[in-house]
């Protein structure tokens, strides 16, 4: 546990020592602000983050979080620091979990910035705080999955560009493509399969204010699978 925290702190520090943290913060604030300003913060609209979460957040996170995760392991592989790291008394799983935790904490900071919007909304109408909490919980789970996927691709290559492209493409497929295809396909079992694979359809219940254990299990287990794969990928590197 100690090593995981040490690793997480280093990663969190590294974000703020490089421009990444600021770039990601800027992109995130700009895009969510735009979506909120043009979509939700208008006369007659509902005083909730529902529309922001429903259409925008899935897209914004699928781009912003891979920027956050692309360097996590790729950079160590490219610069050779992986050698000093993995010859210190720390296991591969501690490295992966520490890096995951570091990125997750940064993501929580990002999420905290959107709390500004419900405060603004509360000035003009009643905000359903239970719904808001549910939305945020869904965003947290979805973000954790995105980070785990990004971390896995970062462990696969020493080129950050390759890592980010792979994660964005995979996240886009499972967030949008599978969701879209599910509405088009006629064959029942394929449709159900696509729905189950679609990150968006799992996320929608959270947007509606529903915490379904099914979806929680989906996000958590999928994230764990990707973290496990990242650990295995790092362990494999030793044998090459």
């Amino acid at each position, binding site marked *: 546990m100690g090593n995981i925290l*040490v690793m997480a*702190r280093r990663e969190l520090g590294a974000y703020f020592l490089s421009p990444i943290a600021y770039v990601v913060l800027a992109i995130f604030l700009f895009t969510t602000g735009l979506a909120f300003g043009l979509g939700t913060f208008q006369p007659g609209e509902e005083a909730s983050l529902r529309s922001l979460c429903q259409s925008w957040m899935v897209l914004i996170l699928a781009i912003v979080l891979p920027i956050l995760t692309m360097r996590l392991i790729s950079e160590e592989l490219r610069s050779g620091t992986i050698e*000093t790291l993995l*010859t210190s*008394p720390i296991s591969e799983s501690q490295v992966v979990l520490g890096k995951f935790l570091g990125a997750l904490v940064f993501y929580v900071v990002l999420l905290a910035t959107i709390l500004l919007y419900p405060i603004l909304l509360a000035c003009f109408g009643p905000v359903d705080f239970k719904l808001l909490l549910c939305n945020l919980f869904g965003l947290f789970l979805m973000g954790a999955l995105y980070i785990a996927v990004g971390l896995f691709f970062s462990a696969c290559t020493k080129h950050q560009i390759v890592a980010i492209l792979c994660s964005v493409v995979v996240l886009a497929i499972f967030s949008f493509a599978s969701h879209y295809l599910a509405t088009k396909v006629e064959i029942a079992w394929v449709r159900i399969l696509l729905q189950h694979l679609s990150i968006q359809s799992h996320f929608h219940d959270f947007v509606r204010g529903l915490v379904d254990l099914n979806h929680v299990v989906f996000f958590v287990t999928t994230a764990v699978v990707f973290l496990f794969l990242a650990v295995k990928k790092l362990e494999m590197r*030793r044998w090459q």
Partner: protein
Amino acid sequence: MIRVQNLSKRYGSFLAVDNISFHVERGGVVGFLGPNGAGKTTTIRILTCYHPATQGTASIGGFDVFNQSMEVRRRIGYLPESAPLYPEMRSREYLKFRGKLRGLSASDLEKAIGRVTDRCWLGEFIDRPIGQLSKGMRQRVGLADAMLHEPDVLILDEPTIGLDPTQIRETRSLIKELGQRHTVLLSSHILSEVEQICSKAIIIAAGRIVASGSPQELRDQFLSKGRVIAEMRGPQVEVEKGVRSIAGVQKVDISADNGWVKLTVEAAPGRDIREDLFKLTSSNGWSLREIRREGATLEDFFVQVVAQQSIKRSRD
């Protein structure tokens, strides 16, 4: 302290390390010497638990590098060849991070950082971002990291590569000093470096150990095969006959040069025939203008064994 037995490492079809065995006692600086691509880094990576071996075993301080890897990692300090560091961090932050990974407490860590800052002459550079440091300074930060937790064994892969002459001299004297408190395994392809700072050298070429011993032993081993070169004025046939009659002479090359007879004589190991040669010339009344033992350096030995090894390997 370090024990390696029948170790092999294969990358695909390439055999990088071919069944090597050696052991290193506690204390002192041991040089791991070989040309580039000889398998030094591969062996070091096995010892530091970065790569597993294909065959054979290795242990450090009695702990197996594969089965008790965490125990080994706690006891070693490792400086990889390129001294990789995180450029965005300051040296002090980096050392703190590394110290915490090794489980040093906050107060120990503070002391340890002070100690390595002194010993590696980091001075004011300790608070600069690593990305702004020169190659030499970075090497020192890497070294500071390796000795932060006072490990039993320090493993340094080409620690002086890329440094300027002053830095090389400083680093060498530091390593020599470190040898008094730690067991240092140092890899190098520079022979004079090993000759200067190591109490023992292991020469590796094409994945095999070709010789090992103290620099003095290695030199003796080579010198024993030393040759004597002499030039004297006398009748060639008689000179040859006279030289061949000296006890222990094994091989004589003789050539005439403008009235002088030039001799290259190889004698039995450990036998110095210079005095006999002198007596031969003086008793015959021949004049002598040169007599010398061929100046063998460790360099010659190194070149010779390495060449033999690569010939052997290409024949295999």
